[in-house]
């Protein structure tokens, strides 16, 4: 490694970090736990793969992976691959330690998540990252400067975890990079099969009650509506329901819009699905009396602040939650 050139291009602090990390014996480092990969053809490397910022060359099969963000971490572990390091602002701010379970696995079974070393938030500690001597970093495309800094430490894939179908896309890339395309396809097929199963169960409900409005209620004066382009809306759409947006509301490519609760007047929908942080009716939330006056059933989903917005486990969790709520509300009548 040419430290002088690196220092010129990226600054001396990063070069110094890399120099120091090179002095640490790699044998002392934990390895990324992966399933049997004998089938992986070493000849496939170096591999060039496109991410959100351009092309990334991966010189050899990655064995020491760091993930940043729950969505990406969850997608990686669904392949049976455990990262050596994990960064998350949700965990950094909320603290998984208080739950008494391994860092990074507060929303996953510990056996699935493994016990990666915590490297900080969405802009992780570069020192912690360097110390783990990663050979691949997977980063959500939150900030280009952070991406560039990480890319100087190890090959870094910048992949957007937002929006419908994001985890499937990430999974496809990771399967390709790790030589686990079949496993990736299997995870996606399992998810799709579960979607098809739930959709079939809900078929009688869909005949009579096909329209659902999906509201996100994070605060008393903050009401949002989702359409099918947002991950949550995509799940409801996957179940076969139409997502009804209040009259006059327009939603851009992000898949969500902030609305005045007044715009719910005249809403014609079979159900309102809410995503909220607390159980039951929300005291003092102005949306409550409006929803109560609409004569539309309100079905409530409580979310954990640290739970990711998407991912194979997360989406399955919410998908089943939505399906249960809709089945419980309309199922008996439909049968």
């Amino acid at each position, binding site marked *: 490694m040419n430290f002088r050139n690196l220092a010129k291009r990226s600054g001396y602090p990063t070069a110094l970090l890399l120099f120091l990390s090179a002095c640490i014996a790699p044998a002392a480092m934990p390895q990324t736990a992966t399933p049997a990969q004998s089938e992986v053809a070493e000849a496939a490397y170096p591999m060039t793969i496109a991410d959100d910022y351009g092309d990334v060359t991966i010189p050899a099969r990655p064995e020491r992976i760091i993930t940043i963000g729950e969505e990406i971490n969850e997608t990686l572990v669904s392949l049976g691959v455990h990262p050596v390091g994990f960064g998350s*602002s*949700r965990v*950094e*701010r*909320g603290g998984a330690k208080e739950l008494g379970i391994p860092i990074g696995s507060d929303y996953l079974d510990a056996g699935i998540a493994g016990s990666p070393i915590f490297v900080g938030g969405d802009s992780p500690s570069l020192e912690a990252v360097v110390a783990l001597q990663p050979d691949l970093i997977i980063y959500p495309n939150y900030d280009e400067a952070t991406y560039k800094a990480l890319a100087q430490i190890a090959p870094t894939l910048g992949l957007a975890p937002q929006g419908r179908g994001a985890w499937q896309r990430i999974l496809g890339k990771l399967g390709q990079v790790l030589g686990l395309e079949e496993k990736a396809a299997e995870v996606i097929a399992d998810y799709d099969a579960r979607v098809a199963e739930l959709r079939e169960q809900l078929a009688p409900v869909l005949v009579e009650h096909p329209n659902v409005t999906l509201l996100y209620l*994070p*605060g*008393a*004066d*903050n009401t949002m509506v989702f359409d099918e382009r947002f991950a949550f809306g995509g799940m409801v759409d996957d179940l076969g329901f139409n997502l009804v947006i*209040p*009259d*006059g*509301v327009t939603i851009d490519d992000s898949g969500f*819009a*902030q*609305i*005045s*609760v*007044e*715009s*719910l*007047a*005249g809403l014609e929908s079979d159900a309102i699905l809410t995503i909220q*942080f*607390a159980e039951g009716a*929300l*005291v*003092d*939330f*102005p949306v409550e*009396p*409006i929803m*109560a*006056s*609409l*004569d539309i059933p309100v079905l409530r989903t409580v979310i954990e*602040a640290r739970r990711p917005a998407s991912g194979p486990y997360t989406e399955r969790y919410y998908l089943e939650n939505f399906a249960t709520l809709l089945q419980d509300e309309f199922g008996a009548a439909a049968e």
Partner: protein
Amino acid sequence: MTTASFPSSRRVHTAHRSWALLAGGLPFCVVLLVICILASIAFGAADIKPETVWAAITAFDATDTNHVIIQTLRMPRALTAALVGAALAASGAIMQGLTRNPLADPGLLGIEAGAALAVVAAVLLFHISSMSTYALFAVVGAAATSIAVYILGSIGRGGSTPFKLTIAGAAMTAMLSSFTTAILLFNERTLEEVRFWLVGSVAGRDMTLVLQSAPFFFVGFILSLALARQITTLALGDDVAAGLGQNVALIKSLSAVATVVLAGASVALAGPIGFVGLVIPHAVRFFVGVDYRWILPYSILLGASFLVACDVIGRVIARPSELTVGVMTALIGGPVFIALVLWKVKR
């Protein structure tokens, strides 16, 4: 005795005419406020016909969504905006008179920063989410900060002076704002829950909350109006006020209490809203002069009208979403304030 010792008959006549003009202007301000409140009840994201608005007030039907919107959203919202606008303008006027600082507003004493920190910390530690609990913590934060600023500003010789209070307030504001920012940086959910409250919003306040806070506002208004003559004298300087027989320390203390009550109740009900306490007293002074017996009632009425109007505009221009009133006061109040400053500089 020279004629210079007495006001001429012409000056007395002019003063009487000014008094009549100023007194006559107040009913117009009341009418303006009523029009703004009616507009606030009539206009919003939902298009509701005037007859439905009337029916919602006179024959409320809880199963009619439009009636619910009028009764549970728009009426409390209009009253909230009126009370908060009036209180911010009055407390800003008192602050400017008390500190003899033309840039003074309720934020100067750290009241808003203290309330904001208390609410953000309460959301983080106790997971509160209701507006009434926000209000409770905001009052506690505002009161605690005011006391801390007063104690800091009273240290040293001469006790509390406008200069020392201003410095203490600025230091406290900077420190508390940093703490608030740190909490928000490290807790995504807290930011999500309070971000609208932090910008300043009158949406979503129910009538119970408005009625609970109304006594604080009225005590503040009565106290400030009762002190108007003394604040006018105090604005000329402590020595002048003392020379005219005023108990300067008592007047300052009572004025500070009025400011804390008004600004604390405002920030509790609507969060920190800028520019009203700064711009309205300046605009009023432009028309009525330096007498606080006129500045205060005009500030109360025009501050109320201004905030209600800002809220209506914010709801109408961004339909079916809305711009929070804190953003609107900055968008409207900022240019108005610059225009006022330019006008004064040119003079």
